């Protein structure tokens, strides 16, 4: 009997004891210490604050600045403290050159973030800040913070720009630690390397009351330092970039790319017209934005990778090497005699030289850029063969440059014609046209530059890239870039190289305007007919070697005219300049 009672009683005692302990601590917190905790709760003292990292900066190959962070005064608004929405919007609009509706929209979008500071205006001048802050008594919801914004050293198309995170981006990126006030890379390198440039958030616990007393809830580890973003060291050479940008014909559209043929590193990357990425810092104004997007010359289009154009004669070496590789021709084979054109069925295809080139072998056909030779050559191959070989030379396929949104270009296939023309007829005419880089074939200037650089680099194709290395916490990481081989034998390669050399350096070559004394320049001109204008697109692409450097280049002027007379002289200038500055 005694034992049976103890079980229940014993359990009862234990339970009573446990609840006494709990009761004691509830009493301690809610009755004895209540005042202290009420104070903390009201003033919202103990909380975790995120420390945002500093964005990595961008430098050229000699560590000269391209994009840096510069100090900036930014205006914030706390929605929970707004007294009169109309008045405060009007005040901000009046002093800081921003549409009142834009401000109202920001306030509306953030109406639920009562206790957060929401970024309104970035990059405010010091004088303006001092002047306006006198009136902040009337607007308790406004406050200034000293922070940093992006500053770019020159107008260009490759850095891209950073901008305020959108509501939609924020929804997906908040898990990665972005705040509603974050700036993120929107285009170009800023976008492509966003994860590297951004860094990692830090955290800090605030536990200091209004009079500065430490509440001492935690004694240690009160801060996790943020990890700043990596700095990017580019392959770009600021001097060359600036020079190339300055010699591009005024009021013309087009692009110039210069790269190191040994590494694929891009030395200059100019697409014209371009825009000043600083316009986007701190939010682009509606006026500037409209100017940019309504401009018929499309300054925001990166013509080097987003523009696709008919290559014209710069495509010819690919046709020639296909003929040589497939043993359809050899170095001495002469094809159809050029008397200014050639008949295929009932159509007459003209050569650009009305008087005709006569009958010649492949080297001279490239040098003089004779169309008829390539018309005839194309008839010996199926369309699929040409299509495949084009792709094997890394045209009509993405180069994989470290920029977002690169386009692939295009080379038609048998299936494409059936899909678009219904029938696979009249293909001979299309094929003949494709052989001289006309018709449906489209390439990006970057693809052409990479191809000619690979010819110059003895058949080794390097992926074009802008990032040379990144610096993470004083450690340097080199950007690894793979290499590939062009599908051609040593013999074919030498023959193409000799032809390109002859084009620039022998009498009557189409590219003689690009020759520079002291430098071995090789290249090919192109004048591509197109539907965009009267004049042909002007191409000149090739490579230049001397004991100091080996560079590949592509000069492209939309509707510029003839390659030999417009683009080749620009190439000569840039080679000359680079020869002069490289020590």
């Amino acid at each position, binding site marked *: 009997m005694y034992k*049976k*009672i103890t*079980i*229940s009683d014993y*359990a*009862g005692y*234990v*339970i*009573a004891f*446990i*609840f006494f*302990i*709990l*009761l004691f*601590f*509830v*009493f301690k*917190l*809610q*009755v004895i*210490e*209540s005042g*202290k*905790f*009420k104070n*903390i*709760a*009201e003033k*919202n003292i*103990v*909380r*975790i604050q995120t420390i945002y990292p500093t964005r990595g900066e961008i430098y050229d190959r000699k560590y000269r600045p391209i994009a840096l962070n510069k100090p900036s005064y930014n205006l914030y608004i706390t929605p929970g403290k707004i007294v009169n929405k109309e008045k405060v919007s009007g005040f901000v609009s009046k002093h800081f050159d921003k549409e009142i509706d834009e401000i109202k929209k920001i306030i509306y979008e953030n*109406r*639920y973030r*009562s*206790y957060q500071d929401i970024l309104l205006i970035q990059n405010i001048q010091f004088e303006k800040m001092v002047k306006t802050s006198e009136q902040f008594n009337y607007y308790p919801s406004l406050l200034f913070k000293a922070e940093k914004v992006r500053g770019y050293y020159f107008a260009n198309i490759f850095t891209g720009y950073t901008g305020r995170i959108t509501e939609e981006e924020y929804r997906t990126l908040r898990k990665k630690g972005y705040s509603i006030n974050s700036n993120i890379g929107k285009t170009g390198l800023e976008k492509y390397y966003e994860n590297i440039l951004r860094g990692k958030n830090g*955290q800090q*616990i605030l536990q200091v009351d209004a009079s500065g007393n430490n509440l001492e*809830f*935690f*004694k*240690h*580890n*009160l801060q*996790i330092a943020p990890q700043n973003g990596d700095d990017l060291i580019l392959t770009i050479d600021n001097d060359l970039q600036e020079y190339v940008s300055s010699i591009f014909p005024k009021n013309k559209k087009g692009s110039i790319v210069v790269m190191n043929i040994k590494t694929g590193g891009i030395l200059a990357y100019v697409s014209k017209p371009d825009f000043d990425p600083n316009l986007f810092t701190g939010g682009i104004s509606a006026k500037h934005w409209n100017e940019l997007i309504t401009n018929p010359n499309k300054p925001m289009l990166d013509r080097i990778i987003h523009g696709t154009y008919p290559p014209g004669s710069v495509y010819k070496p690919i046709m020639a090497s296909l003929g040589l590789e497939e043993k359809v021709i050899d170095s001495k084979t002469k094809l159809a005699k050029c008397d200014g054109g050639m008949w295929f069925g009932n159509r007459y295809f003209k050569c650009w030289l009305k008087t005709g080139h006569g009958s010649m072998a492949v080297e001279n056909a490239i040098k003089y850029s004779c169309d008829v030779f390539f018309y005839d050559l194309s008839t010996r191959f199926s369309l699929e063969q040409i299509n495949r070989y084009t792709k094997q030379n890394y045209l009509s396929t993405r180069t994989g440059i470290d920029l977002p949104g690169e386009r692939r270009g295009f080379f038609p296939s048998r299936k494409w014609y059936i899909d678009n023309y219904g029938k696979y007829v009249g293909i001979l005419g299309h094929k003949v046209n494709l052989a001289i880089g006309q018709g449906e074939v489209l390439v990006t200037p970057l693809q052409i530059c990479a191809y000619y650089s690979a010819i110059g680099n003895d058949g080794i194709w390097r992926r074009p890239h802008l990032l040379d290395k990144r610096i993470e916490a004083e450690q340097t990481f080199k950007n690894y870039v793979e290499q590939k081989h062009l599908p051609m034998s040593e013999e074919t390669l030498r023959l193409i190289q000799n032809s390109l050399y002859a084009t620039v350096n022998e009498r009557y070559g189409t590219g003689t305007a690009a020759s520079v004394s002291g430098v071995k320049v090789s290249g090919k001109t192109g004048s591509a007919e197109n539907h965009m204008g009267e004049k042909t697109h002007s191409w000149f692409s090739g490579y230049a070697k001397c004991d100091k450097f080996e560079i590949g280049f592509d000069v492209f002027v939309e509707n510029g005219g003839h390659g030999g007379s417009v683009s080749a002289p620009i190439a000569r200038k840039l080679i000359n300049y680079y020869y002069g500055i490289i020590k």
Partner: protein
Amino acid sequence: MKRFEWKIFGLLILLMFIGIISIYTASSTKIEGDFLFANYFIKQFIWIIISMFILSLLLKTPIAIIDISIIPIYIITMLLLILVLFLPEIKGSHRWISLNLINFQPSELAKLFTIMVISKLISKPFLSDGQILLRSFIVTLIPVALILLEPDLGTASIFFVILFSILIVSDLPKFYLILIISPILSIIFSFSFWIFIVYVLLLIYILYRSNLNKVIIGFVVSINTFIFFITPIFWNGLKDYQQNRILTFINPMRDPFGTGYQIIQSKIAIGSGGIFGKGFLMGTQKNMNFLPEHHTDFIFSVIGEEFGFFGCVFILLIYFLFLYKIAKSIIKIKRKEYRYVSVGILAYITFQIFINIGMNLGIVPTTGIPLPFISYGGSNLLINVTAIGFILKYLNERSIFA
């Protein structure tokens, strides 16, 4: 239904009703003067209905059927514990089986059926002490090992409370309990040489006073000494993050950005509630979303903030009456197996309440154990109600075996 314990049942219903109200306010947010409500309280209501249905089903089922199905269910539960290890991680551990409607934790089921299987196996007549120990330990250690792999230290610790509570009421001589507890204390004290020496001397004294034979005393002391030497080796063999995890478990303030911060916010919420509280739906700490698990693990902090000291005392009182009624009624259960089960369940519910409220008050480590009958969570509620259901069932059936 003459013998049905209406008071226990009534208090259970009251607790679940408090739960609904608490979840309703805990999952609300105040935005610009308007309240937004998540639909957790509706889901919880549906779960209460389901639990009541299961409970009535249980009360109607012949007890013989329950008796024979215990071991098969235990085995299935162990298989589920193995299965869960191969499922994808949810929130950093392999605890949940995620079905479309609910996330179910097999470890919840394991607690209940471990209690039942231990009770069944050690209540058989003519067992030696060794057999009782062996059986109860094997039945406990299988789920503990599997749950530690998930990893879920908090839940694993509950199993020892269960085991200890059942053994304490069993026929096992009490000194065996020293045998069970002493190695655990040895692990804790092995970090300080002098404390360990004092502890061993004390242990020898207690064993000596219990008139035990010298071989057993020698055995206990040598096991504890062995643990003293092996613990540092084992500890140093752990990786940094594993050590950190254990140290943080013991002292959450080591992790100020995680559990430490949660405890501080919970204390601020409860403390700022004061004597009368801030009023229903008016908790400012809650509305500012400082705590991540309002409606589950930290629901007590919301109650404390909005209903103050009086609210907390009321809740504690209801819990106390509920548990005390069960404790008092246990002697009415005459059959050993059922009594062991009831004690195990009582201990396990009490322990959960203590750990959860203690965590909210900042006096015990955070473990992710919800507040029974009040916290949001379907599978947890179902298991807890079922557990109480077994006690009610045994109380109902007591005449048969009296």
